[in-house]
């Protein structure tokens, strides 16, 4: 097996006062050395899927699966110590909210250099140089100034790129990116995507790209998984998203505002209760 990740029948459950809430309901997929997109409406379980793979679901939430392996390790039985090692050396996750995930009392520069130094033996000067290089690579203007700023002193899009820099600097085999470019203007977005693209093409990194931006995902990814209510309703080859057949996917595509063709009102999705009940589509390789 050369898949980086294999997941079979994954559930993420949260006990609530109205009983158990199933955020993810029995999905199966694998990740090769590819760019796998996960799209779907808000609350469909995209982030919980990403977090579950790295066992980052906070209790009382819990994960169940028939199989969950990452680069050969059985994630289900791995100890927290093993998971920490896995997360550091093999897999990184760019969280949906950068400012929430950055340490508020540590400068940007220190956070990036520490991320690097836990994985590689480099001295401070080298680490600083690499961090500045990385900030520059993610199109941060004036890296020297930003290096010494605290997270609350950077803009939304800068925070997002700092998080990306921090996660890419240890050179992971697997990157799970949860809405990594949602706060970026299109031109910076293209630059950031190019970096990720390069890592996939040149180093064989596997990328899970979670996004609600359908156009972006269809241009950028190789395969797309479409989630609804905790299940996978459709799997598409990228570039063929316009051939999607599920009414939910089509509804999502139709609700995007387009600069070229203005409309009075945007189409909104009409949800069919049957979508929720249909069995999950497998996205295994």
């Amino acid at each position, binding site marked *: 097996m050369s898949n980086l990740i294999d997941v079979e029948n994954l559930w993420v459950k949260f006990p609530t006062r109205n009983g158990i809430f199933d955020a993810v309901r029995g999905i199966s997929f694998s990740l090769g050395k590819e760019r796998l997109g996960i799209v779907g409406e808000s609350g*469909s379980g995209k982030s919980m899927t990403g977090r579950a793979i790295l066992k980052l679901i906070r209790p009382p939430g819990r994960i169940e699966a028939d199989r969950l392996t990452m680069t050969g390790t059985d994630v289900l039985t791995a100890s927290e110590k093993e998971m920490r090692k896995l997360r550091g050396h093999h897999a990184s996750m760019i969280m949906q*909210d950068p400012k929430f995930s950055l340490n508020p009392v540590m400068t940007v520069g220190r956070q990036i250099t520490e991320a690097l130094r836990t994985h590689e033996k480099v001295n401070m000067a080298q680490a600083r140089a690499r961090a500045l290089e990385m900030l520059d690579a993610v199109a941060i203007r004036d890296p020297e100034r930003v290096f010494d700023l605290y997270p609350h002193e950077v803009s*939304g899009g800068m925070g997002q790129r700092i998080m990306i820099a921090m996660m890419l600097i240890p050179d992971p085999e697997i990157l799970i990116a949860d809405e990594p470019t949602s706060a970026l203007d299109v031109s910076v977005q293209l630059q950031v995507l190019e970096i990720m693209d390069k890592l996939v093409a040149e180093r064989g990194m596997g990328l899970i790209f979670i996004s609600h931006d359908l156009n972006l995902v269809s241009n950028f990814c190789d395969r797309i998984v479409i989630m609804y209510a905790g299940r996978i309703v459709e799997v598409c080859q990228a570039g063929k998203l316009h051939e999607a057949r599920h009414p939910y996917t089509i509804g999502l595509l139709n609700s995007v*505002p387009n600069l070229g063709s203005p409309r009075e009102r945007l189409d909104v999705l009409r949800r069919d209760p049957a979508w929720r009940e249909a069995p999950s589509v497998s996205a295994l390789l």
Partner: protein
Amino acid sequence: MTLAIEISDLTVWFGEGAARSNAVRQVSLSIGEGESFGLVGESGSGKSTVLRAITGLVPSWSGSMRIMNRPLGAKRDRTFYKQVQMVFQDPYASLHPRMTVDAVLSEALKLHGFGDIDNRIDRLLEDVGLGKGFRFRYPHQLSGGQRQRVAIARALAPEPRILLLDEPTSALDVSVQAEILNLLTDLRAERGLTYLMVSHDLGVVGHMCGQVAVMQTGEMVELLGVEDMRAMKATHPYTKHLLDSSLRSVR
């Protein structure tokens, strides 16, 4: 037409002396009552800072700002917040982790002297497309998009005249985005609200706004009408580049 927002020569800086950096430099713009105005531009170019300056959240600025013909000084009073509400870019940081949705909304309603809190909360949640089931949840029990809708509901609570919207839908999926944008369109039509809206999505700005200002490194480099934007009639190289990249990313 009355001007809802009038800003001239706004400069905002952080740090003093050698450490001073100007985040916003001599920005001027005016927005008529009932208009919707878009602010786009490079990440880090000062868009949020302009909005934060209006709401009194930056320490040092110069120039002048007027809201509904009233000049703004150093402090903002309660009448200001009754008129002007902001939806922040960052829905996580803007909701208190230990407050339920119910507590967030009832606090906002009480602060502005509303009665009939119970019904109003239900209405607000419905307006932003969240059911009653979300009323007693904490922020960590909500997805990113659900939190953003709570933030929008909170901003709508005092029934403001002006909404400052900082990337209000960038955390939302396209279907919820469509619902929120339609909601904002309806509210503006019904109540004559004024919007100043930051977004990096030119499709969204084109859909929502009549005029668009483009920012780069703290300066406003171009002001253009939405028709010109659609027709790609930009004059500044950065605006051209932005429109061009936007086309490339949609393809």
